């Protein structure tokens, strides 16, 4: 079970959008796909769903080649930036169309979710605001029940209350009927606790592909009086530092050395968003 990408390459003109990408999305896990703008996230997701084609390499869905394979592609639903339904179509009609494309689409559930999000199914898709256009897509994504669900920036334009409702509904569904969910988003802090496995992409290459917990245990933070922090830092592998007046916080690689740690310093854990930002900063410096 799973989606396997083997040595994918994709070029747009002079730009190498994906550079020898090999990855596996295993069954029934929640993945986070993180990367800055232009890193290749959407290209990768569009390749998986056959919306665009790789220059070379292969994609397997549950062991079957995905290219032009309706059986394999029917197992995957992708929520993307583009609206794939005709503009003048009513929401209720779009639900019916989704039911034809995806045999496990639950129309009753879609109508119930629309009600919970305050989305009127009699409205036309092109009359929706940015937020409601996102809600419309989310409602379909939550009702299709495919083994693989790809969410590319799922909460674009959603208010805090609706984002919260969406994450709850997604987890409820996942806990009851596990599916593989791939979430690509810039709102890392919001999904950090949801994703079991993190994939970080940069300039078309996979930089990290690891369990989130493992990734975060690669380092730790130390904070306190600057002179004490500096004393602890000397001779250790420092990822980054920030200071405010006489206070300093440092991210370090490896495990804390309890014996050498002064009493007045606070130990902390890396969080996913900080980890991501530090990693990007480090890559920027390394490639200058």
């Amino acid at each position, binding site marked *: 079970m799973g989606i396997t990408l083997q040595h994918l390459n994709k070029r747009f003109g002079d730009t190498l959008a994906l550079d020898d990408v090999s990855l596996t999305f295993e069954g029934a896990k*929640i993945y986070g796909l993180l990367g800055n703008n232009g890193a290749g996230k959407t290209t990768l997701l569009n390749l998986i769903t056959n919306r665009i084609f790789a220059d070379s390499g292969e994609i397997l869905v549950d062991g079957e080649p995905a290219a032009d394979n309706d059986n394999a592609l029917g197992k995957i639903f992708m929520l993307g930036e583009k609206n794939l339904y005709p503009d003048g179509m009513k929401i209720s009609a779009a639900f019916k169309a989704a039911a034809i494309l995806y045999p496990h689409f639950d129309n009753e559930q879609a109508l119930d979710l629309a009600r919970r999000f305050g989305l009127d199914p009699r409205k036309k898709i092109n009359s929706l605001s940015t937020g409601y256009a996102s809600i419309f897509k989310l409602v379909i994504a939550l009702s299709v029940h495919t083994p693989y669900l790809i969410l590319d920036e799922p909460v674009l334009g959603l208010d805090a209350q609706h984002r*919260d409702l969406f*994450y*709850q509904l997604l*987890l*409820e569904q*996942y*806990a*009851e009927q596990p599916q593989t969910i791939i979430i690509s988003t810039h709102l890392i802090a919001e999904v950090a*606790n*949801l*994703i*079991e496995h993190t994939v970080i992409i940069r300039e078309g290459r996979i930089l990290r592909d690891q369990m989130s*917990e493992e990734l*975060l245990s690669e380092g730790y933070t130390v904070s306190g009086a600057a002179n004490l922090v500096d004393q602890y830092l000397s001779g250790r592998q420092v990822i980054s530092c920030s200071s405010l007046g006489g206070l300093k916080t440092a991210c370090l690689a490896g495990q804390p050395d309890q014996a050498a740690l002064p*009493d*007045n310093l*606070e*130990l*902390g*854990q890396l*969080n996913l968003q900080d980890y991501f930002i530090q990693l990007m900063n480090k890559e920027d410096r390394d490639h200058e």
Partner: protein
Amino acid sequence: MIHFDDDRPIFIQIAEMLQDAILSGVYPEESQIPSITEFAVSCKINPATALKGINLLVDEGLLYKKRGLGMFVSPGAREQLRARRQESFYLDYIIPLLKEAARLGLGPKELQTMLERGYADHGNNTATSK
């Protein structure tokens, strides 16, 4: 709404939250705790993380599984937790208290006075709420 700190892994914090709830009697012995799904949804965490936290308490004998029903608080769990917390009270509370007191320039006498004041203000209250 439950908020997590940045300083420890989430599954540890789930385990501590459950221990606190058992200790304070929110989940009495032999009662059922919420399901993995309920924990995941209400805390907005991956169900695997919730399971990992709950399993810590299973390993410690504080929770047990009833097949097909869910997780229950073990008999004696509260007493076991109380004994353990009493043991770690010195390290978890007294040592940090002394460190902070030193930073503030408070000596043994002042601390003694404050402890007495604390008992006078809240002592009965905390003694009966156990």
